[in-house]
């Protein structure tokens, strides 16, 4: 794996670099026209540079193959470039896999979308994204709920005490009740966490939980100067939860969850 921490210190070289003709992979959109260059940092080990329309710039690298698979090596290369950029400015990260046919196509794309890009760059300027995931740290989430929720326990005991196999409808009803409680608990804990973090976050995005054990999956837009305070606040907020919860937070990231690049692809 590419060590993104070691490449983060590479300086931008203040001169125009050769623009690769042909297909270009796009990592991000950044403000300003100052040329940026990160030799060999890109996907396929290609040199990363900027293509500007005179006001904003796309951060790109040449590409031998138009098909870029979401393989670990490519994801980490993509992330390494974003990490370098994030050390200098807040970029608008492009979706993984965005490929343009030529440098000219990128310039046209920049001009067409300039208004949208500039608006979004203003929105995220001076900020970074932090991620926070909280999960129930229990071996059996259903048992955990049955043990902590009287209503659910009563329902389970009622059907379990019948001394026979549960009917399909009974199973469905119990499952629904469990889902309802799961959603309620998640909403309650998410609100509690957002309340605790509101002083260090400009915006939240509540991402969907993908496993039953997940309590919340939050993306937080945080002012750069508040990053340490964010970590301290998460640690303090985590103490409001008991040992049945596990916390995992990470960042800084480019603001993936706070940009919507609806590329105008039509000519």
């Amino acid at each position, binding site marked *: *794996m590419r*060590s993104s*921490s070691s490449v983060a210190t590479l300086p931008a070289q203040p001169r125009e670099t050769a623009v690769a003709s042909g297909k270009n992979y*796009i990592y991000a959109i950044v403000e300003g026209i100052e040329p940026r260059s990160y030799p060999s940092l890109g996907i396929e080990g290609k040199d990363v540079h900027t293509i500007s329309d005179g006001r904003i710039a796309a951060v790109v690298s040449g590409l031998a193959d*138009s*098909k870029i*698979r*979401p*393989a*670990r090596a490519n*994801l*980490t290369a*993509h*992330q390494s470039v974003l990490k370098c950029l994030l050390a200098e400015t807040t970029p608008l990260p492009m*979706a*993984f*896999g*965005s*490929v*343009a*046919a*030529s440098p*000219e*196509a*990128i310039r*046209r*794309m920049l001009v067409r979308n300039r208004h949208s890009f500039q608006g979004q760059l203003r929105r995220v300027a001076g900020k970074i994204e932090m*991620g926070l995931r909280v999960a129930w*740290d229990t071996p059996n989430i259903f048992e955990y709920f049955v043990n902590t929720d009287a209503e659910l326990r009563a329902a389970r005991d009622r059907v379990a005490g019948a001394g026979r196999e549960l009917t399909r409808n009974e199973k469905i009803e119990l499952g629904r009740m469990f889902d309802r409680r799961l959603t309620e608990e998640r909403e309650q804990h998410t609100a509690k966490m957002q309340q605790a973090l509101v002083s260090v976050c400009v915006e939240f*995005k509540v991402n969907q939980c*993908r496993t039953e054990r997940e309590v919340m999956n939050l993306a937080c837009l945080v002012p750069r100067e508040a990053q340490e305070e964010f*970590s301290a606040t*998460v*640690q303090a907020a*985590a*103490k409001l*939860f*008991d*040992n049945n*919860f*596990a*916390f*995992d*937070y*990470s*960042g800084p*990231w480019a603001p*993936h*969850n706070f*940009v*919507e*690049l*609806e*590329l105008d*692809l*039509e*000519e």
Partner: protein
Amino acid sequence: MFLIDDIVTSPVRGIFWIFEEINRVVQKELAGEAESVTEQLRLLYMQLETSQITEQQFDAAEKILLDRLDAIERRIKNGEEIEESQDTEDVVVTEHEIGHP
């Protein structure tokens, strides 16, 4: 509470987050069979991050899953090309790349 912080304790620490952050579009845009492949990829990243598998094991399993994803994409693309043929776009964004989180 149990807090996992940002301290880098292994070379692959953070790789699952990278997958989640960078690859979320893949998770969002694909449906059905592809979604299940992506979910398997997600598990694979989690196993790598928690040292349940080695990087070599990861690479081998990843290749199989990505090949499968390619095959699904080819099928989808072939199906779509019958309905509409767009060769004039100059920014190519394929199925799993469209849009944003």
